[in-house]
């Protein structure tokens, strides 16, 4: 089997793609390029940091009247709204207003109402409308979604075995299980546990990198309170989108909601205590 491994900066982090297949190197490279192309597409469509992105355009205008949205954006928005509903707002893509108020996102032209939530987002066909000024942010789900899209692209290109890892949110496929280490929340440059994955995704959330400019700020969408705990949560799920979203649900949701969602998404939550 021929192998290839690349890493490029996307989605505010480094995205690493590893592939193996009985293909020649140009074919492996073409597959990897196709995967990075869909990641770039997610980045440019969904970035709340890029004023020119489709998401930023909607955030500026959808409270004034219905605006058309692309199929790609609506797919991730529907998934995000479902997680918001099912977690009773413990995960909420409307968290952008909270993050802006905390200085975790750059200011925008439209000031989002701090109490706005997922119920203020209406989808009608391909049209999107906000009931009040708000700021959608897919930071809690876009990396997972991009990883899933990249995995689909690699499969379509005939890759036999792969891993796509967007700064810790990852998904694998192939005939053999892959061993993934979990960072130790007490000393994040070290790892403390090994998880074996096969055709599965894994995402983690913890507070240890959020002091700086983290691409994944951890804030309870309902209270606006940043996650202050020292635990690290990791979720294993069939898709990286679900794993990514469920790590935020794990941090902020009521236990019954969390357990129901883990069941619904056939997911498993691993908790590492950050303090003895």
């Amino acid at each position, binding site marked *: 089997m021929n192998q290839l491994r690349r890493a490029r*900066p996307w989605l505010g982090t480094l995205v690493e793609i590893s592939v193996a297949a009985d293909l020649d190197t140009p074919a492996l490279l073409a597959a990897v390029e196709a995967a990075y192309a869909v990641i770039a597409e997610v980045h440019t469509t969904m970035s709340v940091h890029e004023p020119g992105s489709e998401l930023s355009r909607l955030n500026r205008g959808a409270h004034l009247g219905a605006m058309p949205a692309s199929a790609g954006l609506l797919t991730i928005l529907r998934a995000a709204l479902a997680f918001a509903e099912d977690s009773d707002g413990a995960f909420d893509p409307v968290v952008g207003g909270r993050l802006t108020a905390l200085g975790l996102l750059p200011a925008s032209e439209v000031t989002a109402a701090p109490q706005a939530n997922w119920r203020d987002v209406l989808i009608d066909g391909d049209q999107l409308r906000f009931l009040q000024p708000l700021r959608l942010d897919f930071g809690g789900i876009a990396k997972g979604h991009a990883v899933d899209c990249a995995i689909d692209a690699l499969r379509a290109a005939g890759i036999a075995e792969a891993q796509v890892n967007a700064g810790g949110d990852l998904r694998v496929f192939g005939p053999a299980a892959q061993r993934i280490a979990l*960072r130790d929340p007490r000393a994040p440059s070290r790892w403390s546990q*090994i998880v*074996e994955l096969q055709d599965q995704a894994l995402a983690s959330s913890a507070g240890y990198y959020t002091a*700086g400019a983290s*691409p994944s700020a951890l804030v309870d969408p309902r209270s606006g309170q940043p996650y202050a705990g020292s635990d690290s949560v990791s979720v294993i799920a069939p898709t990286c989108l679900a794993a990514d979203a469920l790590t935020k649900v794990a941090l902020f949701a009521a*236990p019954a909601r969390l*357990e129901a969602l*883990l069941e619904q998404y056939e997911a498993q939550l691993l*908790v590492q205590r950050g303090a003895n």
Partner: protein
Amino acid sequence: MSLSSRIVLLPLVALMASAPARATVYLSIEDAQQAMFGASVMTAQPLTLDATQMKAIEQASGVPVRGSLLRVWRAADGGWFLVDAVIGKSELISYAIGLDADGRVKQVEVLEYRESHGGEIRYPGWRKQFVNKKPGDELRIGDDIQGISGATLSCEHVTDGIRRLLATWALVLKPLA
């Protein structure tokens, strides 16, 4: 948090004296050049920035310039290839950027990612820490891990580095062309 069968509280393990190093080499400089410029002839053109240039690049990019040495290649088609390194929270990343003759970014590739302090992996009894293991699975001590999951590490220092190199092109390389 109540525990159901879908929630596993992982046992704490002792922190070992030696941190496991993670170093991944993705591409050599030559391979990155070929990926970006094909068979085009690349001519090394190393440069040393003077204090005035460093100051100007800092002002234009808003990013500190810590080194005066530039690792630059000129492509036969007028493009540029630069190799740079940035240091993050605990990691050293060397990367290459390809620019076309007009200074537009063709491609960015990480060449090498090195984390932690370079110690050997010493993890006695690590099999006991293995979770999610299926019956019958055998893990050999010393088997490499194939990935790391954790809180998202920002790559802001890489994007800052790219901004600094683009300012370097505009102020130093473009006038050479």
